[in-house]
């Protein structure tokens, strides 16, 4: 019964979050920051969860894992579908260099902090192989930044399509890279974890990877046939859409990988053999994005465990500070390299919005807590959520500071 | 645009035993020419074949729309046929066709021709309507069902 109660609150919140009234509320900077980060949904999740008001007990949460598989499969297919070659070909080169820069910066900066913090947190006596997956999670969730550019706009920053795309597209590419990076490393980590030896069980993880790629190809091919058979009848479409999403999410979970990784590959294959019916499927998937986003954040709030020891909190704080330093240096490096581009980019590049954490991080952490619901993984999800909130607030603070430094450029977005 | 005024019982027929498309076209053209003043069945049949040669008018749902524009005609004629058995329409045609709506129109009013084609498309769009038409007992029943389907739409 309480599972149903929590799902009802969850959907009611999702309905409100996507209602027209809330869209208009997003015009003010703070409101759009708060809402697009999904924090209201996380707060409700925590309030309802086992650590909050205990409306949803631990046992009910595990019972709801097929719902988590459906939601994460949905996100994976949504991300995979847009990674079409025709789109990737149209992306100008600077965007790619920015993403590669971000990956290198993050692996070095965040990677080292994560390695030290995790080893210290698990007081060193577990073998390294077990920490590969948590390390991969912390690095992958640091890639990219929030793609929401609506709160960017005020009189000071000139508003044109290219500036916003220069922020949104690299972050989208980074979130695809994050899913693939985490998916691969999680395979290696899990296989070595089960064999428990120092040496990495590369053979077994290669087998799993082969199976996931085969799943993506099988689903791409059969998906196209199924979508054409569904035709224009909405009842048939709904059956096939839900079937595809749950099938790919479920099977990639069984292949001990996160549903996001398998679903993204399947979306990629399906997207690149697109027909009109596949485009109709993509519209169905993307239109529910905000509803699915709210459900992901709410499930994250329900699942996260915030009883972090002192070490856990220090690790979270270190991740936030390193992230701020990294992202601003990355942007300065990008601004120096892009001097040839229109001058209009430079004010945007110094804009602190890049500090905000990408929402894919929450989905990745939730998928790890789903595949292996241990207290450690739930605390990692808690860390990712804390880093996200802190990064959002830091971005707002730094934006206010930069306004006070250059007062002439006007105040809050109307 | 209503189909009913163009549907005369005499030009609503069930063609049995035609195994090929041309035989069906010939039978329908013969019946249509009887109602047209300035064209012989053979000429009409040739015009229909020329049009089919450009691009076959068959559809995956099994409904064909052969048509011809004849100069000097004063009105549009529609011949509604139920083919038993269904015939293979053309090389690579998606499915055998067993419903055929032959349209012979005025060449100086192509817009009216398009409207008639749109009306027919609306009538035979739903699978339920097609099944109803295909289960007609005889020509009179086929005509009654066509009128009922036409009245079912605005």
């Amino acid at each position, binding site marked *: 019964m309480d599972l149903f109660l929590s799902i009802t609150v969850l959907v009611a919140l999702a309905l409100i979050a996507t209602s027209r009234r809330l869209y208009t509320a997003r015009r003010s900077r703070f409101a759009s920051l708060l809402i697009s980060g999904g924090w209201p949904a996380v707060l409700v999740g925590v309030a309802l969860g086992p650590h909050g008001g205990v409306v949803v007990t631990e046992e009910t949460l595990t019972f709801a894992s097929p719902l988590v598989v459906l939601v994460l499969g949905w996100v994976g297919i949504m991300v995979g579908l847009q990674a079409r070659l025709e789109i990737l070909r149209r992306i100008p080169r600077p965007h790619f260099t920015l993403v590669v820069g971000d990956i290198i910066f993050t692996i070095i900066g965040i990677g080292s902090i994560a390695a030290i913090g995790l080893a210290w947190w698990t007081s060193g006596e577990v073998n390294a192989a077990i920490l590969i997956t948590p390390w991969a999670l912390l690095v992958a969730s640091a890639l990219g930044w929030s793609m929401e550019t609506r709160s960017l706009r005020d009189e000071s920053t000139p508003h044109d399509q290219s500036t916003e795309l220069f922020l949104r597209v690299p972050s989208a590419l980074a979130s695809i890279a994050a899913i693939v990076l985490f998916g691969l490393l999680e395979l290696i980590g899990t296989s070595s974890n089960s064999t428990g030896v120092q040496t990495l069980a590369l053979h077994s993880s290669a087998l799993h990877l082969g199976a996931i790629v085969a799943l993506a190809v099988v689903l791409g091919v*059969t998906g196209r046939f199924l979508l054409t058979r569904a035709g224009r009848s909405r009842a048939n479409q709904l059956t096939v859409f839900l079937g595809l999403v749950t099938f790919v999410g*479920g099977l990639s979970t069984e292949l001990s990988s996160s549903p996001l990784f398998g679903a993204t590959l399947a979306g990629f294959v399906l997207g690149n053999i697109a027909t009109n019916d596949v485009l109709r499927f993509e519209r169905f998937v993307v239109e529910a994005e905000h509803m699915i986003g709210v459900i992901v954040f709410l499930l994250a709030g329900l699942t996260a465990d915030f009883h972090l020891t002192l070490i856990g909190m220090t690790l979270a704080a270190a991740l936030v500070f390193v992230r701020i330093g990294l992202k601003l240096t990355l942007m300065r490096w990008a601004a120096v390299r892009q001097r040839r581009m229109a001058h209009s980019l430079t004010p945007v590049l110094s804009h602190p919005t890049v500090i905000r954490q990408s929402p894919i991080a929450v989905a990745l952490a939730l998928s790890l807590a789903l595949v292996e*619901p241990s207290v450690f993984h739930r605390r990692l999800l808690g860390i990712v959520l804390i880093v996200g909130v802190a990064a959002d607030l830091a971005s707002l603070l730094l934006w206010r500071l930069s306004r006070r430094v250059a007062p002439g450029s006007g105040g809050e977005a109307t | 645009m209503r189909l009913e005024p163009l549907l005369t019982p005499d030009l609503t027929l069930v063609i049995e035993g035609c195994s090929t498309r041309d035989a069906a076209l010939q039978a329908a053209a013969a019946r249509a020419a009887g109602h047209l003043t300035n064209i012989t069945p053979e000429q009409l049949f040739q015009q229909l074949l020329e049009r089919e040669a450009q691009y076959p008018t068959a559809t995956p749902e099994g409904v064909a729309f052969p048509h011809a524009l004849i100069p000097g005609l004063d009105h549009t004629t529609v011949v509604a046929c139920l083919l038993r058995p269904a015939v293979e329409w053309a090389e690579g045609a998606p499915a055998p066709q067993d419903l055929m709506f032959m349209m012979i129109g005025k060449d100086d009013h192509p817009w009216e021709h398009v409207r008639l084609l749109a009306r027919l498309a609306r009538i035979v769009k739903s699978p339920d309507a097609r099944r109803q038409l295909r289960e007609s007992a005889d020509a009179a029943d086929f005509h009654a069902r066509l009128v009922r389907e036409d009245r079912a739409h605005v």
Partner: protein
Amino acid sequence: MRSIWTIATMILLTVFAMLVRVGFGDTVFTNEVQSTLGVDPLGIPFTLPATGLVRTGASVGLLLLVAYLAGQLAQQFRLAAVTGYLGIGILLGPTALQVVGADELPYLSLVNDLAIALIALIAGGEIRLSFIQSRWRTVFTIASIEVFSVLIGSALLLPFVLNWSGITGELWTPLPIAVATICATIAVANSPAVVIAVIAETHRHSSMGRLALAVTICKDLVLVALFTVVLAVASSVIIDSEDQHSRSVALTIFLHLGGSIAAGVVVGIAMAWYTHVIKRHLGFFVVFACFGIALASEALHLEALIVAVVAGLLMQNIWPDEMEAFFEELEQISMPVYCLFFAVAGLRIDLLALSSIWHWALLFVAARGLLVWASTWAGWKLARAASGEGRWLWSALVPQAGIALALASIVSQTLAPSPVAEPVFGFLVAVIAFNQLIGPVLFKVGLARSESISQAKDSLA
């Protein structure tokens, strides 16, 4: 040509799922034991999710896709799509290809709650009060005659069948009679789900279809009350438990039915208000309304079937125009729910149990079919209804599905202490399985025949 591609896709999806489950079944997360303990890097133990639960996600996806294709295939061979969903459920089930394991059934049957509420809502929506006012006498006569003749006929025949099949030892002692009466009550059950699914699938909203639906629903309402009484009395005989007095049994039934009808009215008004005022996200709202009805009825000990039928009836007959959008959305969502509901029903059919007693079950199915035909024909003649659609009405009263299965599982739970529970459940499931497979096809033929009869009559007139 298309059906080759359909079969190829079904095989590809199923084989791939089997390969993943066989090849990678031993990974650290999925393990055979219900849920074992793991230790995380912090040294804190945690319970791993049960294998059945982890596999439910993929099984739901696989069943949806493959059942959908099987339904299309069945329609290409002039069968009812429902038979396709059931057939694929049996094929992938734990007693056949074992693609879907037995440990997943408890999680998959969550869809039953959603399906029964949704089917009952649609059934309620199909009934027009004007139709009831004009034909309630026919509906009530046929339903009552059919219920009692099938009940008494089966109750007399079953002791022999149960005896021959070795389920009950002696013949005319209290135990076999009590068991026979319970099985006879379930033999009366019908399936609004099959009636609605076949009507929706063939788009034939003829008057015979509407009459069949009204009779089926009227019978099920009577059946629910009958079942509660028979089960209470019979279980006290079988397990000698004297906890229930006959007076309190009557009271619980009255509360049970009255409460359900009242709850149905409240739910109907609430749903009408949402559809009228808010109008948005109807899809999500419909799914949650059905879950709500199912789980709330369970919690308040009401009958979800009655609550939903009353709600659907109320909405369709009081605000027909505003509720059009609601029922359109209901129809969209019914397809995936039917695919899953009938596939899961197929999964639960135990081929092993079937193999030992199928011939006795088939004998009883034939006898029941005869009883249904005779009683419907008699009821039809008695009601002196004019038009000829009555000749094929019996074909709608043969199929059995969800409700019969639900009652059978209630029987096996209530009789659990006695040794006869398991074989009786096996026998009931076998009978229901045959009715599930034959029923939809029979009704599809009956619907087509009755429509051609009424059309022949129209053209003559």
